């Protein structure tokens, strides 16, 4: 049947086939985003001895659909004296990088949309574009709360990107490759070959910087309900707001996915007697996502100057020192521990 369709489409076949593959990645991702919001409300609910949403469907299982329906039917209000084009462009600038980065994410050794040679760099470059959505939203809204949120968020994202980048340098030193598939393949052979053990400080920095990059609690000063109402998206309503929401959760899943691929051995099973497979990757991603939710339920919001201090004065020196340690250890007979 495939060949019949291929013959029918002729020169358009590669384009159509790529679009199909993109849909196969994006649609389950959107589903995962929807149910991550439900998981968040349920898990935080249980952590705070509440029940969480339980009215729509059995035990609240249809709650994300109800939320989506509600947001779709709400009016998008464009503030007077706002910059209309930039105001509507900002959600797009926010979601586009969050989705584009998934192009190079491998789900198994063969299952990857684009097995690019420098895929790790590609992910970093694309995710660094996400900050424009926040800045443009804050500026175009013509509101001081939105603007303050955008300024906070921009400074925070740029600061933590450095620490995150240095943490990734450690990974590519250990794997000696920029390709995500090769990075995972470098961790073959059980729990003790995963990079989170030799690169433990970098793993911690990566996860915490990931929380800060996605503007999640306890680093959510960009939203800061009690100070600047909701930060950069205070003027957004309906679907325009929902797109920001989707981008935030897609970014969370992306960070968790990258942590699983680079530090937790990707699709490899932790013990030799169980087979490898996508199920392990899914389990690891879910674990890192659970950490995100757990942090939110546990820690109070960081003060802004302490966020800056943590990024610049703790994380960046820590990663630099550990990079020197990894580099030096590789020259010794114990270098095999870091490969």
């Amino acid at each position: 049947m495939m060949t019949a369709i291929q013959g029918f489409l002729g020169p358009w076949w590669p384009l159509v086939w790529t679009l199909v593959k993109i849909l196969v990645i994006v649609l389950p991702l959107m589903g995962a985003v929807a149910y991550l919001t439900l998981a968040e409300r349920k898990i935080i609910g249980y952590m705070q001895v509440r029940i969480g949403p339980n009215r729509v469907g059995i035990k609240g299982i249809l709650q994300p659909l109800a939320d989506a329906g509600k947001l779709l039917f709400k009016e998008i209000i464009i503030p007077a004296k706002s910059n209309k084009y930039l105001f509507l462009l900002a959600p797009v600038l926010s979601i586009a990088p969050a989705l584009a980065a998934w192009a190079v994410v491998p789900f198994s050794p063969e299952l990857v949309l684009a097995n690019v040679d420098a895929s790790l760099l590609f992910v970093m470059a694309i995710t660094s574009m996400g900050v424009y959505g926040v800045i443009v939203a804050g500026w175009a809204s013509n509101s001081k709360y939105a603007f303050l949120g955008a300024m906070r968020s921009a400074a925070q994202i740029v600061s933590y990107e450095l620490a995150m980048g240095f943490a990734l340098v450690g990974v590519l030193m250990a794997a000696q490759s920029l390709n995500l598939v090769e990075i995972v393949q470098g961790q073959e052979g059980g729990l003790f070959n995963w990079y989170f053990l030799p690169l433990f400080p970098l793993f911690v920095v990566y996860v915490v910087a990931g929380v800060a990059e996605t503007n999640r609690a306890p680093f959510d000063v960009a939203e800061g309900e009690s100070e600047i109402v909701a930060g950069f998206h205070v003027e957004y309503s309906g679907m325009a707001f929902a797109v920001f929401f989707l981008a935030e959760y897609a970014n969370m899943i992306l960070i968790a996915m990258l942590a699983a691929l680079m530090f937790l051995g990707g699709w490899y099973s932790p013990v030799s007697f169980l087979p490898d497979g996508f199920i392990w990757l899914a389990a690891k991603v879910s674990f890192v996502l659970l950490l995100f939710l757990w942090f939110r339920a546990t820690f109070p919001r960081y003060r802004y100057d302490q966020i800056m201090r943590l990024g610049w004065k703790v994380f960046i020196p820590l990663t630099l020192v550990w990079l020197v340690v990894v580099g030096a250890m590789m020259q010794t007979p114990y270098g095999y521990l870091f490969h």
Partner: protein
Amino acid sequence: MNFETIVFYIFSAILLLSALRVVTARSPIHAALALVLAFFTAASIWLLLEAEFLAITLVLVYVGAVTVLFLFVVMTLDIDVAKMREGFWRHLPLALAAGAVMATEMILVLRTRTDTVAPRNLDTHYSNTKELGRLLYVDYVYPFEIAAVLLLVAIIAAIALTMRRRKDTKYIDPADQVKVRRQDRIRLVSMPAETARMKDEGERMTNEEERG
């Protein structure tokens, strides 16, 4: 015309238009955003050249960090567009002369380079990143490191020249704050417990208040 050529012309058109917007846009914010688009399309054209490392680094450094800081500064400035545009016609001859000199230089440079070679078609396993790394860290390691040190010196000098700290500014140091322990702030004072007489007095007073 094959697919790559079409893509090249589309990207080039976007690049030229956005570059034009950088210099013609009224609002500095729009100019900075047009600059972002120009960087991004330039990176796309480099990707067509199979220079993926340079393309990704261009996006990572210039789009992801440098222009964000540009925007950050430009957005917080109070810019009077009308004031910026005044004197446009007065300065135009000088600007035109400078532009003409630059254009001539560029034309001369482009015309003298006759030894352009078409990019070779490399096999799929060729790693642009690895080759660049070899050039920078093996063949030209000393010039590269010297350039890096020079840049570092320039950064430190720029910061040292512009940094002024007022003596009377009150600022907080989070490093000191996080070191604070309980005993630094709390002093437990032992006091005798309230006696029964005081309690009676209190009751009598409330009773009087109720009666009054």
